[in-house]
């Protein structure tokens, strides 16, 4: 008698468990965008310090950070506050992502919550055993240097904690919209691109494919020394849909019309269509794409059948700028392991200060945020250590050096006169004021 083992699944395909966590204001708005675009709500988690922003979010699961610290206010653009707030809520964050295979972390870097709490979220997700992919934005250039520095520090931090970081620059995304459209649309366009990216990756990983792309392939592609990524997605249902979909994918400003593709080492191409997807179409698309990439580029091709697409064909391109890392995973390097306790150490005093700030609240003292602000001394140097995260032990020495550098740029000891052109419109080319004698500008002694 032949026994049929029914408990064994018929197909080897196991649905993927995944969570998408939006941290901070920008992260939450991406979560909202994803929900609008039809992602399963149970997969979405909104994390924020600002209670008001959190309550207006549509995510199924919401986590408020630092309710004893900021009392429902935002982190005020200060990553240290975000850090301390996340430290408080670490167990809660961990249990939220427990049991998922992949965790996407969406955040806008540069502010308080995204930059400060993002790394903690990543850490929590790693501990829960998930593959962590961070999808983050860098602030607009006009938001100022301070925010940029905070964002870059947080990005460095995330790169060491996550399996992959996909980083979008807001400045480049602004090219998505016409210069005259409102600022609202510019941010919506940025959110859309990011949510498109997350959905694209999810779809690639989750769909049963003929030529399957797995997490390993994705990580290979995203592993490079430059976190900035290339992402393009295009769909078309015309007669020449393979060509049009690719053209559309390349038209994404993050691609700079395919010019940047030349410099990538690895490129993931995912083509999906319904049952009418033909081999010829895949061939046309790949021949065209090959014109844009260098010969030695490592191509990872995946195709899948998605009945939902109907007559459409969709193509997704993912890669990262810069040269690929040697194929050792970051997690295994001792550097990253060492970093984790350091984060905890860094945040602990901050948490302590938070508690200290809480104490006076029993004695009537209405503004705990201000109270904490009034004594920033113990936190500031720690925060600097975290920013220069790759250093394994805290070094207090680089701190004064850094302040000195900044000062030199602000103070101009030798005011240079422009002579005859003093009152006329300056001719400035590439940051040089051409009205000042060339000899002076080039530091030439005559």
């Amino acid at each position, binding site marked *: 008698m032949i026994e049929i083992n029914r408990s064994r699944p018929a197909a080897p395909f196991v649905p993927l468990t995944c969570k998408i966590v939006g941290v901070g204001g920008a992260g939450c708005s991406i979560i909202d965008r994803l929900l609008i675009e039809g992602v399963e709500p149970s997969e979405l988690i909104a994390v924020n310090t600002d209670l008001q922003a959190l309550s207006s979010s549509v995510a199924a699961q919401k986590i408020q950070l630092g309710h004893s610290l900021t009392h429902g206010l935002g982190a005020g653009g200060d990553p240290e506050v975000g850090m301390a707030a996340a430290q408080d809520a670490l167990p809660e964050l961990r249990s939220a992502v427990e049991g998922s295979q992949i965790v996407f972390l969406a955040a806008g870097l540069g502010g308080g919550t995204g930059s400060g709490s993002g790394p903690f979220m990543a850490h929590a997700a790693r501990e829960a055993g998930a593959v962590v992919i961070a999808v983050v934005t860098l602030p607009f250039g006009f938001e100022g240097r301070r925010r940029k520095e905070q964002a870059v520090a947080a990005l460095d931090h995330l790169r060491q904690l996550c399996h992959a970081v996909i980083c979008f620059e807001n400045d480049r995304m602004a090219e998505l919209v016409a210069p005259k459209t409102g600022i609202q649309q510019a941010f919506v366009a940025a959110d859309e691109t990011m949510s498109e990216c997350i959905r694209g990756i999810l779809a690639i990983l989750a769909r049963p494919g003929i030529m399957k792309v797995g997490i390993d392939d994705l990580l290979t592609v995203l592993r490079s020394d430059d976190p900035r990524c290339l992402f393009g997605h295009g769909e078309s249902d015309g007669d020449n849909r393979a060509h049009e979909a690719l053209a559309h994918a390349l038209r994404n400003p993050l691609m700079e019309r395919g010019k940047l593709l030349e410099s990538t080492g690895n490129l993931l191409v995912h083509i999906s269509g319904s049952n009418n997807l033909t081999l010829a179409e895949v061939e046309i698309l790949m021949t065209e794409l090959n014109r844009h990439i260098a010969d030695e580029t490592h191509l990872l091709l995946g195709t899948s059948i998605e009945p939902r697409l109907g007559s459409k064909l969709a193509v997704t391109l993912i890669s990262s700028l810069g040269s690929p890392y040697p194929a050792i995973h970051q997690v295994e390097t001792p550097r990253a392991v060492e970093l984790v306790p350091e984060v905890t150490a860094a945040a602990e005093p901050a948490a302590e200060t938070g508690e200290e700030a809480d104490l006076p609240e029993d004695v009537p003292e209405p503004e705990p945020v201000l109270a904490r602000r009034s004594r920033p001394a113990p936190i500031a140097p720690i925060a600097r250590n975290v920013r220069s995260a790759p250093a394994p032990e805290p070094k207090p020495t680089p701190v004064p050096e850094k302040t000195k550098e900044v000062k030199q740029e602000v103070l101009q000891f030798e005011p240079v006169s422009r002579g005859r052109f003093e009152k006329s419109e300056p001719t400035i080319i590439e940051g040089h004021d051409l009205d000042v*004698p060339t*000899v002076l500008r080039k530091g030439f002694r*005559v």
Partner: protein
Amino acid sequence: MARDDIVVGLEIGTSKICVVVAEDQDDGTIKILGVGQVPSRGIRKGEIVDFDTAQRCLHDALVDAEQKSDIEIDNVYVGITGSHIQSINSRGVVMVPQEKGEIDEDDLASVKASAIDVSIPAENAFLHQILQHYYIDDREGVLNPVGIFGTKLEADFHVIHGIRNRINNTLRCVKELPLAVNDYVLNGLASAQVVLDQEQKHLGALVLDIGGGTTDYILYCDGAVRQSGVLAVGGDHITNDISMLLKIPMARAERLKVEEGSVVLGRSIPGERVLLKDETGFAGREIEREKLNTIIHMRMKETFEILLQRLASDPKFEMIGAGIHITGGCSLLKGIDDLASDVFGMEATLTHAHTMAGITSAFQNPQYSTAIGLVKYAQAVRSESPSPGLLSKIFNPLLNIFRRN
């Protein structure tokens, strides 16, 4: 009494205001009748900063020109420059309906409309829209598409634009005199008309008109304008550099530049000194020649390098056959052509207006290239439009009399 065949070019430059009065002769050539010139004041980098002073200078220059040419001037062609001038190349496409097949004038008009429909900032206005090439069904080198069968007509245009208010400032200064402005032309474009001949335009050439306050550049390829622009650095900057670094007055610095300056380094005897004579209010002193030349050299080298950087992105720049043509007052600096060939890596020559009749001293001076170029441009435009009929020849002067009163 104003004559029909008189064309007047007016260049409001940073160092001088120059008026060229010329006669458009029946055989299509131009004869220069007189040149009026006064040193300008109230103008920086090619744009008016002190309106009243500039207008007074302009008036003097016109009176000078009227006296020298014995012609009453009532309308002019004005040269425009300034750092706000920008340019782009743009292509337009129209599909010719199958049943028509043959391309006609309407198609040319609509392809032009589609090509020049480029987005420029709201405060900007178009200065020129210059045709480069037509393509019919992707076929190049069609000079006149009218009457040719095709389905797709494309045209490349070079569009030059600048800030409307800043162009109008210059024009208002002229109009208030009062003088009629027939047309306004980018300085660089005007200079190129007299500096280059047809063959050089086809071979490809770069014209650098280095004036007092600005350097106007224009690149020709295959007989059409390929790139153009203005860099607000000119001879004034050299004078200012000398004045500041050697701590001498502007007027002395200007004279020192013109009389002793050179852009070539390492040619002077080590320790050689230039003597500045003492005069009222200025004690004489000696200046090391190499020091003076270094100041000039550094400035010009940097200027050329900025221009090279702007132009080198154009793939056609490498392939220009007729080299670089330097004109404008600053081209009188010694050794400037050698420096330009060094920086650009191609032949550079000093040049001035050609193909003119009349006062030789006027057209052979590179300082007048733009003003003469304006006249030439005007003549070229006039020869394209149909000549006025007999009736209008009689009535127009009469009408003009009424208009003026």
